[in-house]
């Protein structure tokens, strides 16, 4: 492939669109889209793809375009596939098994008859409230094919920037769009770019653009999905940013736990280089830029900007104080602009559609103040005790209720909603009374939580708030780099108190002690990890104080999670005597005869919960 010039893009777009168009006469009459993100693959999408490939090979007359896409978003219903027959509405099939493929192929693809049993009902609300900007190519492109990306207007924003805009104009556009950092902090991207450019210009120095793909928050996988499904949108965003800032070298720092994303990214980078979209003289202009990939090695703190840059330099990822900003002295002490995956992926759309289009979506007013509102959309991974777990993109300002109950379909198993946790370990828990809170940077911060990178974990009545707070503190305790005392020792002390409370040894004054520790940590920790670490504890105390008090005063865990604070019992009226629990009990604590109610020997029971999860009759209760 020769290196592209600006005018070649339109030709490739036209050619590729023509190639993949469904028509009677053309090469393809049917399109089958298989979603191959990590979620899909883990659920068995690989064998679904093989089954379709076998069918396509044995039916060349069907003229099927088999498209290998990234994440389909609806994780709970993976593996998914979409079938579009010429002249018919596309149909999404869910929960597929390899044996279903033959039926779908023979009925739908060959005869045009939709297989109702496996289809996602058109009235399903999961996709309805969503607004795709970052996930705009979901189900449309093969992430391993750059021409697919170009066919859907890929790299046109880059061409526009290189041919008709000055770096200053690009920065002004991004500033006017009100785009704020999607990694959690919510710092206006345009302001960051401008400062970085200025610092470089003043000192006549090389500057770097960096993409933070070290998505460490447990329960969050937005960035992984974007890279797996649409890596070129991130690359294009980075090149545009580099042009605006005046950088010639970029880095992607990606966590090693994401092998599929890494593979797609490397393929995309190689293709971009081959097509002349990276390297010397991009699109035939005199602008040159390239991107290098570094794998993280399992350290949560490396998502912090200074720690990430230390890690890029080949050192331990330990943060430093930030009174000197990284936009002035960052990687190798040069001006460095770090944005996360989702932020970069927004950039091409903003350039193509314009800032005024972007600001129509979202809340607040950013005309004079880039912090004045939250514009655009946000991608969330909706997980935990919710029916429709999945990856969603919603306009800023949507309420938590709409996300959890309309898109998420509510709580499964007839249980009651209790809490939603946003912002990962640095965020907080929000109670039912705040369900109508609009989701934007400022409202969430005000409520004591934060937007964070986009993990949204729902808890039901079986979720113990003290246990959850302990979970996050334990996570942070393990991940604290140990450089500064407030974070290192504060987390240790907090964990000790929470551990005591969950063991029924809580004392009066514990909550006040937690509060004191939180204040010190917030005010005096070196980096955001320590400063925001107390959030899960503070919000759970603020909104669920009675649950802490039940643990401390009554030595009870109302949710039945903390093993020392409940007993397992079998309700004789509900027990059918099926013996399943007795068979699986690892300590033989359950005795009883067939078809007669069983009983649990509390001295032998280790509360492993095996019986609780096995009982089909709800006969095992925690009291």
């Amino acid at each position, binding site marked *: 492939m020769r290196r592209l010039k600006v005018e070649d893009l339109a030709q490739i777009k036209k050619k590729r669109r023509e190639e993949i168009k469904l028509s009677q006469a053309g090469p393809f009459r049917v399109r089958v889209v298989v979603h191959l993100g990590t979620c899909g693959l883990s659920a068995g999408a690989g064998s679904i793809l093989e089954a379709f490939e076998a069918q396509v090979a044995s039916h060349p007359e069907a003229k099927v375009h088999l498209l290998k896409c990234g994440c389909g978003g609806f994780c709970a219903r993976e593996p998914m596939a979409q079938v579009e027959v010429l002249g018919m509405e596309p149909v999404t099939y869910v929960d597929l098994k390899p044996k279903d493929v033959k039926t779908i192929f023979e009925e739908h693809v060959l005869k045009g008859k939709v297989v109702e049993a496996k289809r996602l009902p058109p009235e399903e609300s999961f996709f309805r409230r969503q607004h795709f900007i970052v996930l705009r190519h979901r189900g449309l492109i093969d992430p391993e094919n750059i021409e697919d990306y170009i066919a859907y207007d890929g790299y046109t924003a880059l061409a526009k920037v290189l041919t008709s805009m000055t770096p200053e104009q690009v920065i002004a556009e991004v500033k006017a769009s009100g785009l704020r950092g999607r990694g959690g902090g919510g710092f206006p991207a345009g302001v960051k770019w401008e400062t970085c450019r200025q610092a470089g210009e003043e000192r006549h120095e090389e500057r770097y653009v960096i993409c933070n793909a070290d998505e460490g928050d447990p329960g969050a*996988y937005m960035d992984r999905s974007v890279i797996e499904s649409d890596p070129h949108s991130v690359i294009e965003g980075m090149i545009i940013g580099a042009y605006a800032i005046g950088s010639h070298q970029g880095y992607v720092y990606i966590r090693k736990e994401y092998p599929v994303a890494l593979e797609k990214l490397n393929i995309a980078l190689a293709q971009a280089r081959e097509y002349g979209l990276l390297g010397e003289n991009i699109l035939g202009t005199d602008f040159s830029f390239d991107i290098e990939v570094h794998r993280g090695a399992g350290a949560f703190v490396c998502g912090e900007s200074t720690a990430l840059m230390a890690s890029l330099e080949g050192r331990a990822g330990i943060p430093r104080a930030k009174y000197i900003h990284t936009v002035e002295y960052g990687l190798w002490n040069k001006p460095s602009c770090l944005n996360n995956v989702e932020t970069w992926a927004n950039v091409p759309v903003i350039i193509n559609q314009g800032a005024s289009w972007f600001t129509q979506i979202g809340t607040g007013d950013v005309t004079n103040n880039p912090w004045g509102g939250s514009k655009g959309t946000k991608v969330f991974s909706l*997980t935990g005790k919710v029916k429709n777990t999945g990856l969603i993109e919603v306009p800023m300002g949507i309420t938590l209720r709409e996300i959890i109950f309309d898109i998420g379909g509510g709580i499964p198993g007839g249980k009651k909603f209790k809490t939603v946790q946003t912002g990962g370990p640095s965020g907080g828990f929000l109670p039912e009374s705040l369900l109508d809170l609009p989701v934007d940077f400022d409202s969430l911060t005000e409520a004591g939580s934060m937007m964070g990178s986009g993990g949204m974990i729902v808890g039901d009545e079986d979720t113990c708030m003290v246990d959850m707070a302990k979970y996050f503190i334990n996570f942070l305790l393990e991940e604290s780099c140990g450089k500064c005392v407030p974070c290192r020792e504060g987390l240790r002390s907090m964990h000790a108190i929470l551990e005591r409370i969950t063991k029924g040894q809580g004392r009066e004054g514990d909550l006040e002690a937690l509060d004191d520790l939180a204040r010190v940590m917030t005010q005096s920790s070196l980096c955001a990890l320590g400063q925001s670490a107390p959030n899960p504890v503070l919000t759970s105390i603020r909104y669920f104080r009675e649950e802490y008090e039940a643990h401390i005063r009554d030595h009870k865990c109302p949710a039945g999670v903390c093993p020392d604070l409940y007993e397992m019992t079998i309700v004789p009226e509900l027990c059918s005597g099926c013996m399943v629990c007795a068979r699986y009990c690892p300590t033989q604590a359950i005795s009883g005869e067939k078809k007669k109610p069983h009983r649990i020997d509390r001295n032998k029971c280790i509360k492993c919960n095996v019986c609780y*999860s096995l009982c089909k009759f709800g006969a095992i209760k925690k009291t």
Partner: protein
Amino acid sequence: MEVKAELIQAILQKWQYRKDFLIEILQDVQDEFHYLPQPVLVAMARYLEIPVNQIYEAATFYKAFSLEPKGKYQVSVCKGTACHVRGAATVQGALERELGIKMGETDKNLEFTLEPVRCLGCCGLAPVITVNQDVYGKVEASEVSKIIEKYRKGGETAKTTVTMGKGGRP
């Protein structure tokens, strides 16, 4: 232990002997040996012309690295929030009983290592465990023995497989 110089040089060659790729280099060593053997680290330091302590700083900081040999089968329990909410602790308990080792330990025969893993990002399948490259989604504590039994019998699979349990019922 004897370390082949060619092997070390091949890894360093791949990363162009660049010091800023140290983390990448160590990951390749870890993949090769399943831990970071001391002679290799010392040799690396010599080739890269950096002090050994700089390598140890990185080697002991990142979770992906181990200075101790690991078992043939690495059993990892995802410690992501979604898995936690959906009962990862119960599954962990069952694994500890089944393997007779605690989280973070390796058994005497160097057969199994039980480890926590940071969120794998397939939260829709929670709770998730992996044994080497095999993924088990929606695992239930009662299914753990059967899973481990397979590997005791030497049933390593050549390619990544996915097995769905009946658990994870919220």
